[in-house]
């Protein structure tokens, strides 16, 4: 295949090229990061603050979603948020002004109760692909008239949180909004921690003994929607599920109490997000994919620790 210089590259050559690029990236990383962190631009600092807050929220809600077997609902919602964002783009309104309310409404409808008809996994699959298809279709239809000139880069950034328009492009106003929403989620979750445990562990008992389970479902649905809309900025719509499931799956391997699992998931999620952002910035790789790969590595490490622990206990 001809590359940009016109010469043809073998597979081996391309691997060597990538390897040397990565080696250079790692070698120059400390210098580059110091520059980014202490320099004039707030880009990386803002990204780190937002990343930590978003990772924290995603880990908190991930525990409930994973334990309730609702991981796919999170995935479906992220696609809905993507669809809503493109509609906002077409109408030239701020993306969050549309995607936040739409995602909250769909989330409440999906998680409202066991009688909700949309809960089946095929229904969620249907919702996901429809939202994705409509989103992409609208972007294409309106591409010629919108101000943005680079359609594929736009799509890529929303779906994968790639370098353009991603977490690195936060303005101070974006960051403030993000921080407020994240703090609301964190506050609600910690304030109702015991009740969330009870409702997650045994909804029927909670309802029979007088907890307002329906109100809690709505509350959870709302904070889940907020978290997902925020997380699109960090990793993109397609990769959000990773932020939700990986920290919990890691923590489940290491802890046996609910409190322990939640705390561990939060720590792992924040550590992975921070290292993913720093790695991505240093190597120039896309933030979203880098964070997810770090998450995956953490998960594999946890499996290893669990296995080693099993050997020693026996």
């Amino acid at each position, binding site marked *: 295949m001809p590359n940009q210089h016109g010469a043809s590259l073998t597979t081996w050559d391309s691997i060597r090229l990538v390897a040397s690029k990565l080696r250079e990236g790692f070698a120059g990383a400390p210098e580059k990061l110091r520059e980014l962190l202490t320099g004039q631009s707030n880009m990386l600092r803002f990204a780190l603050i937002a990343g930590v807050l978003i990772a924290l929220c995603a880990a908190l809600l991930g525990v409930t979603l994973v*334990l*309730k*077997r609702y991981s796919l609902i999170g995935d479906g919602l992220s696609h809905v948020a993507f669809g809503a964002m493109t509609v906002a783009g077409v109408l030239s309104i701020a993306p969050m002004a549309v995607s936040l309310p739409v995602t909250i409404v769909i989330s409440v409808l999906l998680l409202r109760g066991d009688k909700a008809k949309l809960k089946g996994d095929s229904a969620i699959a249907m919702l996901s692909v429809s939202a994705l298809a409509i989103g992409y279709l609208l972007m294409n239809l309106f591409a010629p008239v919108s101000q943005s000139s680079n359609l594929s880069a736009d799509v890529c950034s929303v779906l994968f949180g790639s370098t353009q328009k991603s977490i690195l492009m936060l303005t101070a106003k974006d960051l403030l909004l993000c921080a407020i929403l994240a703090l609301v989620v964190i506050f609600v979750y*910690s*304030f*109702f*921690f*015991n*009740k969330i*445990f*009870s409702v*997650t*562990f*045994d909804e*029927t*008992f*909670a*309802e*029979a*003994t*007088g*907890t307002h389970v329906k109100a809690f479902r709505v509350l959870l649905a709302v904070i889940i929607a907020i978290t997902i809309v925020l997380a699109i900025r960090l990793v993109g719509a397609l990769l959000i599920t990773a932020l939700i499931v990986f920290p919990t799956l890691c*923590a*489940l391997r290491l*802890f*046996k*109490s*609910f*409190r*322990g*699992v939640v705390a561990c998931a939060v720590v792992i999620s924040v550590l992975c997000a921070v290292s993913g952002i720093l790695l991505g910035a240093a190597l120039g790789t896309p933030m979203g994919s880098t964070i997810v790969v770090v998450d995956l590595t953490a998960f594999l490490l946890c499996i290893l620790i669990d296995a080693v622990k099993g050997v020693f206990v026996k």
Partner: protein
Amino acid sequence: MELLRFEDVSVGYEGKPVAEHLTFTVNEGDYLCIVGENGAGKSTLMKTLLSLRAPLQGTITFSPALKKNEIGYLPQQTEIQRDFPATVTEVVRSGCLNRSGLCPIYTKAQRKTADDWMERLGILPLRKKSYRALSGGQQQRVLLARALCATKTLLVLDEPVAGLDPIVTADLYALIKRLNTEDHLTVIMVSHDIAAALTYADHILQVAHGGCYFGTTDAYRTSEPGSQFIKRAGESNA
């Protein structure tokens, strides 16, 4: 004192009645067993009793002494709980939540209540253990302790011995009987186990499509529907 009264109540779902014309009362200190065949509406009746479902017709009167947040409930285990990360203490304490209002943490008194019940049920040594690592009988005791934290008056149990071996089953029945006699808790139990129902309960409610029977255990034994049901259950066990 009368705790709750069902008058000509029909229960069911999506407008279709499963069990009809139920009339019975539960007094303080009663031990009522709800028996009947599969599909006769025992579980639906229990959900209605717990106000999880509205009755299709008839009236249910709760005594003012019985507030909704004073009912202890031992549900059947769900799929989610089997691999749920939670310590015994976490599960038991969650029973206290129905009376804590908006308070985000457990009070000292609530923690004490949880500890006391764990002690009574012999699961205090397990308090730091993971719920998913326990045996079936131990798990039932944990869920029973949680139910007891939620009530001072009425304990509602849904097939509490399902899946337990005979020894553990006998222990659990004896324990529930003690809670009834010593702690004066009113017990309502849904059960498949007609023999145990006849041994421990003082009232029986038989739910069936044709008609329901309600009376004391002695009267039930000699009644027409009772003797027939006991005979059939005996034949199928033999």
